[in-house]
């Protein structure tokens, strides 16, 4: 395959960036999207140009490190992470525009790499449960209803990649927030801190500069883990309940 790539190049956080065009030949359709970028970087290295910086880690679709806005879609045209996207999803001769996640709360570090530590600060503000240290407790000692456990497991698949923010026309992280609130709020272990958690996590979300949710739904469509929109309803319900009880 022969591709025309338009890639966002930005030297550092404060520099001005722009889209730069590269031609890449000999791309196999069996390559993953990141392997295609590896090939491009090898070529740039031999030509003496600075390689394109992009985030990646496990390349198995489970760590949440890869990102990339590919032709206007977070993680590209398939429902998966960029590392699990393959070049067979594209055609010979295609022009592919690759941009970083764009959100004020995700400042660009270099090229396609953004700083997503705003998510870490949201988690630190309440996305945890308090448990005694020591030996792990017996897993079945706290019974959880099956439907609630399944819902918690389903939304716990959120890997915090930030695709929801990238896809949202409002730049809101409500799907991420809703996934964490639902995950912990459905389980017995999450109950003691449930109401304080939602208030402080929403407060941190807003303080980070993410936008407000208007229920457009682009987030759920972009999510590689298919987190459904009803977690945002759960988030709103928990917040309403918490505020009513003075949390």
């Amino acid at each position, binding site marked *: 395959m022969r591709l025309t790539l338009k890639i966002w190049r930005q030297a550092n956080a404060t520099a001005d960036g722009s889209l730069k065009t590269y031609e890449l030949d000999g791309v196999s359709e069996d390559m993953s999207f990141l392997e295609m970028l590896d090939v491009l970087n090898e070529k740039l290295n031999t030509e003496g140009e600075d390689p394109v910086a992009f985030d990646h880690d496990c390349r198995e679709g489970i760590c949440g490190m890869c990102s990339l806005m590919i032709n206007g879609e977070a993680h590209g045209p398939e429902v998966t992470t960029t590392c699990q996207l393959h070049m067979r999803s594209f055609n010979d001769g295609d022009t592919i525009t690759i941009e970083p996640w764009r959100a004020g709360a995700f400042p660009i570090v270099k090229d396609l790499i953004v700083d997503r530590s705003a998510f870490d600060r949201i988690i630190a503000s309440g996305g945890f449960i308090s448990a005694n240290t020591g030996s792990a407790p017996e897993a079945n000692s706290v019974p959880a209803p099956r439907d609630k456990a399944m819902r918690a497991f389903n939304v716990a698949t959120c890997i915090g990649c930030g695709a929801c923010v990238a896809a949202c026309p409002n730049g809101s992280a409500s799907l991420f927030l809703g996934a964490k609130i639902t995950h912990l709020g459905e389980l017995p272990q999450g109950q003691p801190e449930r109401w304080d958690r939602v208030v402080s996590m929403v407060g941190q979300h807003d303080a980070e500069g993410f936008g407000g949710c208007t*229920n457009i739904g682009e987030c759920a469509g972009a999510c590689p883990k298919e987190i459904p929109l009803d977690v945002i309803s759960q988030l709103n319900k928990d917040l309403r309940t918490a505020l009513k009880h003075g949390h």
Partner: protein
Amino acid sequence: MASTGLVFIAFVLLHMYGNLHAFAGEENFNEYAEHLRTIGEPMVPYGGVLWIIRIVLIVSLVAHVWSASQLWRRSNEARRTRYAVKKNVHSSLSSRTMRWGGVTILLFLIWHLLEFTIGKVNVAGGATNNPYELLVDSFQVWWLTIIYLVAMVALGLHLHHGTWSAMQTLGFTGSPMARRRAKIAGWVVAVVIAGGFSLVPLFTLFGVITY
């Protein structure tokens, strides 16, 4: 946003129902208009209930517009650099036109109040103290009918997303089934209200409702 939106849904539903009295003729329509003012008498003064409704609506409007402006501002601040390429493949047209659609409805509202409530302008030069005559004279003018139909398209789109969005914001859509129901409710509310409102201008323009 959501709670004041629900106030408006209730209001436009009643307003639409009231307008349909035009199909029952001049006497019925004018009687309904007058009844809006005499309702609750003598416990409340003439026009009392109408003013209570107006005050609720004005307060709701201020809160609704203020909330919208806050969301709009936050949205702009959350993404200062736009994407060179951005696809919106998982969202409805109505969800992406809430802001400019809302502005359109607000401008229409000002026009509508100037025309029929505050100013009472009869473009045909007829009576303005006869609600039915004012209505018929107005909608026999094609460009006035067009303005109203455009406004109803904007209102229909706004209600289509707004109804489901309000349910979601209030936390009533915590399951896929509830979400589907809220989206269907959005369609029903949009079609019934925008469609119901459009009937009177259309039937007047085509000469079914006459003076």
